[in-house]
């Protein structure tokens, strides 16, 4: 699924900003400081996953007019269009999803479309800011690998690190060179005991 089109009605400094035919593959948004690049990033995050339920009014108020919110048009793997609209309102802002067959749904229909993706996953993997990227650099290789691979699993709830840790635990329960408690080490001790008795 990819973003094909968007319309910002009002969000922070952005008002009545649209783009259609966003090309597939990599798109780079260039702009001076304070041009609204991070605001656009937050716009996508907010439309897809909701505005903060609390202090919603203080979150990117529409400085240049318009109703806070807008529309994101997604294209699924079949090339069909899905229109996602969210505007400021109750809770995280009411969401309207227009499916390829023209039927409309709310949050539940959208959650079904995006499967296991969550706001956190989207924020950490697809939409991180410069400061978050800098903090990412401080993670060690295993954590980076874990974060990237976990995003690609799309199933289950364990991270790769947890799976590796569990496999290592199961291995160490069987045999550890120089160990005494694992099952095979205990069998080895008993075998050697018996051997000594028979000799």
């Amino acid at each position: 699924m990819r973003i094909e089109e968007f319309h910002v009605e009002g969000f922070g400094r952005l008002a009545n900003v649209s783009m259609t035919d966003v090309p597939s593959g990599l798109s780079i948004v260039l702009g001076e400081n304070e041009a609204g690049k991070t605001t656009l990033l937050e716009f996508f995050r907010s439309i897809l996953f909701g505005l903060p339920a609390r202090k919603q009014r203080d979150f990117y108020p529409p400085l240049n007019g318009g109703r806070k919110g807008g529309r994101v048009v997604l294209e699924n793997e079949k090339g069909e269009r899905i229109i996602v609209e969210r505007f400021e309102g109750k809770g995280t802002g009411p969401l309207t999803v227009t499916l390829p067959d023209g039927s409309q749904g709310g949050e539940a229909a959208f959650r079904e479309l995006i499967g296991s993706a969550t706001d956190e996953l989207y924020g950490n993997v697809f939409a991180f800011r410069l400061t978050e990227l800098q903090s990412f650099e401080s993670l060690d290789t295993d954590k980076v690998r874990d974060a990237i691979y976990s995003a690609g699993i799309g199933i289950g709830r364990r991270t790769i690190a947890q799976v590796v840790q569990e496999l290592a635990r199961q291995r160490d329960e069987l045999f550890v060179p120089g160990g005494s408690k694992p099952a095979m080490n205990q069998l080895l001790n008993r075998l050697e005991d018996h051997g000594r008795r028979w000799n």
Partner: protein
Amino acid sequence: MRGAADFLGDVLALIDGIRQSPEEMAALRGELTDLFEHARAGKFLIPPTHDALRTMIDDAESRCADLLLEGDD
């Protein structure tokens, strides 16, 4: 699942690659030397045959898949 474009699909494809590659099978056998060539344990153990090694791979594959899928609804 085996052909899926996700991490589990990659794991299963990688394990299939090990089954079909004599070099990978030899490398796997090397990973087991800690046990089968252990100064004390090695005296009581027979190095695994090719079929036994394949059975171990099947078991490892099931364990990996189970752990990766655990918690999936």
